[in-house]
C-alpha cells in the first residue's frame, strides 16, 4: 500500500510537472474562484457576528407621555418587569436624559444652553433576556407596552435590525448562487486541464494498459492531481484572504478611513477572520471540486480499452 501511494504521488507530480503551465493556470483560477467565495463567506460571517453582537445590546426604549405623575412610575416599573422576557427595566427621567445628552456632546454641550430638561421625555430602558432578543419576542413585548396608557412612543431600532437581517439573508443567497457558479467553473477547469494531461500522457497510458496495470493504478494519479490543484488553489486563496484581512482591512482601512463615530458604533464588535473549522471546510470543498473535475475527465478519457 505504501509503495502504491508513493508511486501514485510520484506520477501525479510528474504529470503536473509535465504540464506545468496548464496546471498553474488551473491552480490560479481555482485560487481566484475560492478567494471570491471565501470573501463572501468572511463578510457573511462578520455580518452575522455584528448582528449577534448588536442583538446583545438590543434594548426597548418606551417613552412616557408628558404629564405622567412620578407616583405612577413605580407601578409601571413593576408591571413591565413582570412581562415575559424582560430581564431589567431602568427609569430615565428628563433630567437624567439631559445629563446623558450633555455627556455625549462633550465640549459642545453649550448647544443645550437655554433648553429646559423637562422638554425631554422620560423613558423606560428595557433590557431583554437572551432568548427574547429576536423580532417576534420584541414585537410581543411591544404589543403589551402599547396597551399601557402612559406609554407614548416605543423604539428598538426595528427598521435597521430588519433591514440588516434582510441584507444578511440576501448576502447569503448571493454567496451560494455565486458559489454554485464557481463550483461549476472549478469542475470545468480541472476537467479541461486533466484532459490536456491525459492527452500528453497518451503514450504512457497505452503502455500501462499493455503491461497489465490495473485501472485504479492508471486513474488514481489523475485523481490525486485534481486534489492537489484544489488544495493548493484554495490554500493560496485562504492565505491571500488572511493577508487582505489583517494587513489591509484591519490596519489600513479601519484606522485610516473609519470615522470616530463609526469606530464607537463598532466598539466591542471584533472583525474576525474565518474560524478554523470554516477554513478546513473551504479547503476540503476546493479539494473535492478538484477531484470531481479530474474524476469526470478520467472517466471520459481513460475508459479501459479492451
Amino acid at each position: 500500500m505504501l509503495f502504491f501511494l508513493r508511486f501514485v504521488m510520484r506520477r501525479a507530480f510528474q504529470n503536473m510537472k509535465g504540464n506545468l503551465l496548464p496546471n498553474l493556470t488551473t491552480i490560479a483560477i481555482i485560487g481566484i474562484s475560492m478567494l471570491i467565495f471565501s470573501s463572501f463567506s468572511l463578510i457573511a460571517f462578520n455580518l452575522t457576528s455584528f448582528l449577534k453582537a448588536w442583538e446583545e445590546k438590543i434594548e426597548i426604549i418606551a417613552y412616557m407621555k408628558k404629564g405622567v405623575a412620578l407616583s405612577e412610575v413605580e407601578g409601571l416599573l413593576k408591571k413591565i418587569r413582570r412581562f415575559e422576557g424582560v430581564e431589567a427595566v431602568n427609569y430615565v427621567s428628563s433630567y437624567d436624559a439631559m445629563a446623558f445628552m450633555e455627556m455625549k456632546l462633550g465640549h459642545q454641550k453649550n448647544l443645550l444652553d437655554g433648553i429646559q430638561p423637562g422638554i425631554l421625555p422620560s423613558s423606560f430602558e428595557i433590557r431583554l433576556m437572551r432568548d427574547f432578543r429576536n423580532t417576534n419576542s420584541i414585537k410581543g413585548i411591544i404589543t403589551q407596552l402599547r396597551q399601557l396608557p402612559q406609554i407614548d412612543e416605543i423604539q428598538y431600532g426595528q427598521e435597521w435590525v430588519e433591514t440588516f437581517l434582510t441584507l444578511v439573508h440576501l448576502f447569503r443567497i448571493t454567496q451560494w448562487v455565486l458559489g454554485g457558479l464557481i463550483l461549476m467553473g472549478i469542475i470545468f477547469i480541472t476537467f479541461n486541464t486533466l484532459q490536456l494531461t491525459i492527452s500528453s500522457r497518451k503514450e504512457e497510458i497505452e503502455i500501462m494498459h499493455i503491461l497489465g496495470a490495473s485501472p485504479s493504478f492508471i486513474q488514481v494519479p489523475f485523481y490525486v492531481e485534481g486534489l492537489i490543484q484544489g488544495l493548493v488553489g484554495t490554500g493560496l486563496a485562504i492565505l491571500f484572504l488572511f493577508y487582505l484581512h489583517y494587513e489591509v482591512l484591519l490596519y489600513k482601512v479601519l484606522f485610516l478611513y473609519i470615522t470616530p463615530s463609526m469606530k464607537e458604533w463598532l466598539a466591542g464588535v471584533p472583525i474576525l477572520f474565518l474560524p478554523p473549522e470554516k477554513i478546513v471546510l473551504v479547503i476540503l470543498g476546493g479539494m473535492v471540486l478538484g477531484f470531481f473535475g479530474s474524476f469526470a475527465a478520467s472517466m471520459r478519457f481513460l475508459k479501459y480499452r479492451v
Partner: protein
Amino acid sequence: MGFHPRERLNPFIFLKKKGVHVSFYFNMIQLTHVSKTYPSQISALSDVTLEISAGEFAFITGPSGSGKTTLLRILYCAERPTTGEVVVNGIHITQKGFRRIYQLRRTMGIVFQDFKLLRDRTVGENIAFALEVTGHSPKEVRKKVSEILNRVGLQAREEDSILSLSAGEQQRVAIARALVNNPPLLLADEPTGNLDDPMTVEVIQILTELHHRGTTIVFTTHDTDLILRYPYRVIHLRSGRRVENSA
C-alpha cells in the same frame, strides 16, 4: 485497489476466485471458430481455428490485411472477436463478463514493431516501469532490471536515454520489458519489421534462446525469407482465413 499479494503472484488463482473460467490445458492458445467483423462490415478474421502448444514457437504469416495483427490483438484482448471462443494460457477470454484484462496481460509479454517505449526515460526506467505497474518493490525492481539487461546484452546501457539507442537495441529493450515478469507467453507483432538483417538475426537469437527455456512464442511477420530460415511452425493467413498449416 493497489497490489494484493495474490494478484501479483498468481493471476490464475485470482481470476478463478473471481469466477473466470480457468483451465490448465496443454495448449497455450486455442482459437475455435473465431471471426472478427468490424462495424463497417470489414471481415478481418473468418472462422479461424488453431492451437498453439505450450513451449511452441509459431510464426503467423500472410500479406498485409490478412488478419495477423487482428489475431494478435484478440489474444491480448485489445479486440474482442465477433464470434468464437478463445482460450489463452488457460483463461477463457471470450467468457461473458470477462473484464480483468489487466490480469491476463500480466501472464504475457507483448513486443511491437514500433517498440512502444517511453522516449523520455532511460533504458532501465523503461524496464522498471513494467515492474512498477505490477506492484514490485524498488529492491525487486533494481534486481530484475539488472538481470534482464544482462540477458539481452544491454547491461552497459541501463542509464542511457532510449533515444540514444539503435533500432535493434530499442527492440531488445522492448523484449527485455516484455520478459522481465517471466511470462510463459510472448506475443511479437512484426518485431523485426523496422530492423535491418543483422539486427533481425540478433532479435531472433534472443527469442530462440527464450523458446529453449520454455516460453511460448507467437511471432507475426510478412517476411517469407525470415520464416524459411528457421525450423519453426508456420500458420498462414490470407484475407482473414487460415489457408494452411506447416510445422
